[in-house]
């Protein structure tokens, strides 16, 4: 029987990689394959779905294919380098350490190790699966013999686009008719939250003095987050920048629904799932052309060549004032989502892994 087992450093609930890994396991099992998840660590909620990677050798069978969900450093990488089974990488990108150099030495060391591990694993793998062509190019440059671009498996329809009405009412009551710019993503230097703050300041200066910036995401680099909010404070925006984290699916839906424009000024993105969430919510997108953003977005947003605050502010204003443009972007977003439909992505993964595993049966 075909067996594709996944390895992932940490299996977490409400986490893109965790959700992707579990959805893939279900897809592989639905295809009639054996599939388990091996981890370095798992959240309490998901302990029953995971096995520690050190236990794999006792369970290994001839014909196994190992699929590594690669996005951070882990002893799992060293373990896999020593395994004889065919190895496939599912590469979600590792943010270059240069982004952290000014902020966190321990993160610099961690991501540097992760990138070294990518460099060691790439030539060892028989195939690299990448969320984007941007990520695939990195794998190829590191010596991966073959790559396939298959997006991350996000089932945006699973929750039916839930919106917490109470949260939506609470948000609306706070800002009234003021323009709301939204960004969703962990607070980390590569996401360039400071540019969002500068853009808000400029937008308020030029177009709407009451405009607000809503930031949703966990604080993964505390010094950077502190600097971003101190910066906002210094610019007189303490009451205009609102941070949300630990939101439920419905609450997150409300923040998207509440926003007038989704603004992404990240300087490094390997895929950018929040773009898809904004498309699903019907929130027009303005984004910096960096990393994989352009290919994820396609023509479903205004793609900026620069993050200069005046340009961002002018783009947001244009989307706010031009109903035809906003409608066109939203419609394009809905069409673009079709390319990332969960069913389609599942089929692609099973097809690609099936070829590697020599499976004689591919899910219809």
């Amino acid at each position, binding site marked *: 029987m075909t067996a594709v087992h996944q390895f992932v450093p940490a299996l977490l609930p409400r986490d893109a990689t965790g959700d992707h890994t579990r959805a893939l396991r279900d897809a592989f099992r639905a295809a009639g394959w054996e599939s388990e998840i091996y981890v370095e660590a798992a959240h309490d909620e998901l302990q029953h779905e995971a096995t520690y990677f050190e236990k794999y050798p006792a369970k290994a069978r001839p014909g196994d294919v190992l699929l590594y969900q690669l996005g951070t450093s882990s002893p799992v990488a060293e373990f896999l380098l020593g395994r004889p089974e065919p190895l496939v990488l599912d590469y979600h990108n590792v943010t270059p350490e240069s982004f952290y150099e*000014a*902020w966190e030495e321990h993160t610099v060391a961690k991501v540097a190790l992760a990138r070294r591990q990518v460099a060691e694993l790439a030539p060892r793998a028989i195939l690299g699966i990448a969320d984007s062509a941007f990520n695939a190019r990195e794998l190829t440059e590191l010596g991966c013999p073959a790559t396939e671009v298959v997006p991350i498996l996000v089932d945006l329809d699973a929750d039916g686009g839930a919106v917490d009405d109470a949260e939506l009412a609470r948000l609306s009551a706070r800002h009234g008719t003021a323009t709301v710019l939204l960004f969703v993503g962990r607070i980390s230097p590569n996401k360039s939250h400071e540019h969002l703050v*500068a853009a808000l300041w400029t937008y308020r200066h*030029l177009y709407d003095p009451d405009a607000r910036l809503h930031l949703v995401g966990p604080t993964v680099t505390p010094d950077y987050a502190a600097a971003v909010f101190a910066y906002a404070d210094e610019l007189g925006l303490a009451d205009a920048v609102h941070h949300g984290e630990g939101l439920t699916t419905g609450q997150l839906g409300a923040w998207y629904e509440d926003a007038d424009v989704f603004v992404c000024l990240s300087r490094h993105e390997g895929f950018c799932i929040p773009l898809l969430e904004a498309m699903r919510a019907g929130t027009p997108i303005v984004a910096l052309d960096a990393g994989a953003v352009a290919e994820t977005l396609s023509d479903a947003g205004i793609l900026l060549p620069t993050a200069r605050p005046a*340009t961002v502010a002018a783009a947001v204003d244009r989307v706010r004032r031009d109903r035809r443009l906003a409608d066109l972007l939203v419609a394009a977003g809905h069409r673009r989502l*079709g390319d990332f439909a969960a069913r389609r992505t599942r089929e692609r993964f099973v097809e690609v892994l099936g070829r590697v595993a020599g499976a004689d049966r591919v899910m219809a």
Partner: protein
Amino acid sequence: MPGDTATDVAERIRYLDEVMAEIDAEVRRRRASGDLPAGLERELDELFLEFSPVGLQGRARLRETLALVDGAAYIDIAVPTASNKAVGSYVKRLIRKGLGWYMNFVVTQIVKSAWSVSRMFHVLVDHVEDLEAAVEAHRSPDLPADVIPDALPGEAWWAAATADALRGTTDRVVVADCGDGALVEALIAAGIDTYGVDPSDLVLEPALSRGVDVRAEGIVDHLGVVAGEALGGIVLTGSVQWLRPNEREHLLELVTTRLTVGGTLVLHSTTPEGWASSVTPVVRDLAPGRPLHAETWVHLLASRGFDVADTVRGGTDRRLSRIDTGTADADTVNAAIDTINDLLLGPTEYLVVATRTR
């Protein structure tokens, strides 16, 4: 995209290109109208840098880093025991309770050690801040470049004396603040292998156009990259007269080490009195240092192993003539004239010629 024809996509992309062009035009219009002052965006970037660890400067950076050390010096042994499983929480509490005495013993020693290190850093930072305050108290604004007197060393009264002092030198000679290069040419004409340096590109242009070997550098920077004992002679003039005391010391150190033993230093300067009466009030007030008396240079050079061969006085000669001794009260008047001459009008410049002996 599903349902899209190639024409649809091309049409949308063309439209979005137009929109982007209009956004660019809007930004240009805002800039032209003054809504977006020049440099505003750069100022926004720089403001954020002030909040980043690399952007913090001096005292703020020290204090910020010290706060991090203080924060990291504390270790909390009360590990969280929350768990989504009832039994998990119970097990975690059991472990915390069972190991508490042991962890506390070890952690207390670690924390004490960390606090000792932290206290040492506090003492160091206090000391550094005291030093910064002392240095800051002596800081003076930069001298405006346009008030520095022009010097044409080649036409100066001391050019011939300099050539005489350096004649026979076989190693290279450098002229500081060489201006238009006339002195460099004069020394070359005297058979001395000479080149010049001057911090101002502008004043060097005539020399460069004549093909004279001159470089756009200050003498301190230049000597900093010259090999030890590589020069047979150094001619100092111009801005070396009003260096800050610490810069003067540094220059002297460089001169001493870059000259060969037996090499010649020629130092030209105005007297403090001549300088005070010849420069504008702005220069007088803002110059970082003051010219020294010839005697002071002799003292400084002797302390560094130089043998002072000669001190020549010269420069602007505006001395008042003494009156005829047959005139009534001639002695009294001539004494007053001598005093005025010495204090205000006497030779306002001097040349010190010294040889490195060790």
